[in-house]
């Protein structure tokens, strides 16, 4: 029974970047011991205190939908994945700091989730089929997370971090770089934890609070099946 309100956040990225480890770390505060391939979508829930420490503090459920796969999948797999992109309130884009292609593919991932009808191109052209206009009027908050920070040698770190800073700027998003096998990157009070908390607050605000501060009532949004009537689901 969900007595609290909920928001839905997608976690997208190429195969093997560490989405499942990241989601596990965010929700269970533990490192994932045996990561295995994600088939379909795996969901986890995090309880978040909106505006913690202030009188307006309220607790929300954040659903993290970890969608597996690659941008180059067959169109049948993409159509099946599209089912998960309904009524999304926030998107976390995950890329691997040791693999440049995974960062480049983030453009295609975000287009797939936001537009849901990207024509697959055979050759990846960086920034060629990415249009800033499409992100200018985007209302859904984005967050860019780079994983496997520990595998970058100290000498190359600056170069990699500059590149990811440009990437995050393109998406008009905050960025966090961490190592999913080490919980200290998200320790309470660290700058990463603050950025994460701010992102979730933004997602909740966009969903539940309109611009002049009035609260939108949180009814379960069942807009999935072409505007059907609101019925209670029968669990068999």
């Amino acid at each position, binding site marked *: 029974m969900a007595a609290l309100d909920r928001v839905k956040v997608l976690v997208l990225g190429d*195969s093997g970047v560490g989405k499942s480890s990241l989601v596990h770390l965010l929700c269970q505060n533990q490192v994932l011991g045996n990561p295995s391939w994600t088939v379909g979508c795996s969901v986890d829930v995090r309880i978040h205190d909106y505006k913690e420490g202030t009188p307006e503090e309220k607790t929300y459920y954040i659903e993290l939908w970890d969608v597996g796969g690659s941008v180059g999948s*067959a*169109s049948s797999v993409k159509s*099946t994945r599209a089912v998960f992109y309904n009524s999304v309130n926030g998107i976390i884009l995950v890329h691997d700091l040791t693999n440049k292609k*995974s960062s480049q593919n983030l453009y295609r991932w975000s287009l797939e989730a936001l537009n849901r009808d990207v024509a697959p191109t055979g050759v990846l052209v960086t920034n060629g089929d990415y249009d800033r206009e499409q992100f200018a009027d985007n209302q859904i908050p984005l967050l860019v997370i780079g994983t496997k920070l520990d595998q970058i040698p100290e000498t190359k770190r600056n170069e990699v971090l500059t590149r990811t800073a440009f990437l995050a700027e393109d998406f008009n998003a905050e960025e966090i770089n961490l190592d999913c096998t080490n919980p200290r990157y998200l320790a309470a009070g660290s700058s990463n934890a603050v950025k994460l908390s701010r992102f979730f607050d933004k997602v909740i605000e966009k969903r539940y609070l309109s611009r002049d501060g009035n609260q939108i009532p949180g009814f379960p949004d069942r807009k999935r099946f072409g505007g059907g009537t609101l019925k209670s689901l029968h669990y068999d």
Partner: protein
Amino acid sequence: MSFLIDSGIMVTSQVLFFGFGWLFFMRKLFKDYEVRQYVVQVVFSVTFAFSCTMFELIIFEILGVLNSSSRYFHWKLNLCVILLVLVFMVPFYIGYFIVSNIRLLHRQRLLFACVVWLTFMYFFWKLGDPFPILSPKHGILSIEQLISRVGVIGVTLMALLSGFGAVNCPYTYMSYFLRNVTDADILALERRLLQTIDMIISKKKRMAMAHRTMFQRGEVHNKPTGFWGIIKSVTTSAPGSENLSLIQQEVDALEELSRQLFLETADLHATKERIEYSKTFQGKYFNFLGYFFSIYCVWKIFMATINIVFDRVGKTDPVTRGIEITVNYLGIQFDVKFWSQHISFILVGIIIVTSIRGLLITLTKFFYAISSSKSSNVIVLLLAQIMGMYFVSSVLLIRMSMPPEYRTIITEVLGELQFNFYHRWFDVIFLVSFSTFTPFTSTKMSSSSSPAASAGPPFSICKHRL
């Protein structure tokens, strides 16, 4: 002088093939990965280039291009190089990259790579013992020894792939096997998938809330450690934790269900797209081809069975036999020498092109299915090894499809291999692989004839590995 010109032509064509292999590697295979070790790309392209050169030499043989002695020289040279690559270079690099992945052995990579290579050589040599592939008068380290073993492995691979193709192609091409999928089916399945995920979410919410209240109340849930901890946990256990483990089991079951539903939905989408494709012109054309192909496959199986049962190996090639039939039975007279050259060129050309293309496509699909960012180097090198062995043995087998006057060079260069053995072995493995793959495909067909089957077909797990 002419030798220099010939060598110049050969080298140019080799460079072209190398470039093609390089591009293929970059654009198709390593589309989603970063190439960090250029050695891998070079080795792959080199294997591809020298394999293609062999096919080129066969074509030159038929067409009579280039000087005969320079052709012979280049054959020998090419064969030496490719055997060197397949037996020494590629296995060594495979061992090296495997060892680099294991953290413990990282320090003495080279040493352990040599150890792995020596083990490979031992088994490779032992492979030749049970097979009667060699006449005993050859020395230990000769081309014939190496190529006979490479030939056995390659022929096995070819026969396996042919058997699989013979089963799979009719199923894929012909629309007869397509079952009807409506939009309503897909929507119903998607709805079930989302319902399952909702159930998982609500259970996880309960667990998260329970963890939080326990944490806030100060009852941090400790796993029982040590001997006394375990004894204590038998008698007293927090009531909350029992509840939680029950819910966790339910969640695990639901997650497995959601995975199956996802795979089925993806299958339905794929079938729907195939149905739409089959209504286009291209689809109808392939459907038509599929019927011909199935007849051809049935004929091949029939011939293979006859060859084994009656213990015979075909002596004449299709070109000569076709010409015989037209000349003797149909009484049409034409310039036999001229036409036999051109027809065998076309036939051999088609065989070569389709086998190269088919192999590259299969390798690419295989690579996408099983590689990850850690193992991509090793897998690409394994594929290069398979590709090299495949091409070498197709040269062995193609000898059968050529008229006798063109066979001489292959016989000369490859020495006294027992070619008949290879054909027999091919037929055996072909039949074995065909009879193994047929039950798999037929279960796939029968289980997919009901749209909302409860258990997914076994192959889609491999197909849709994300």
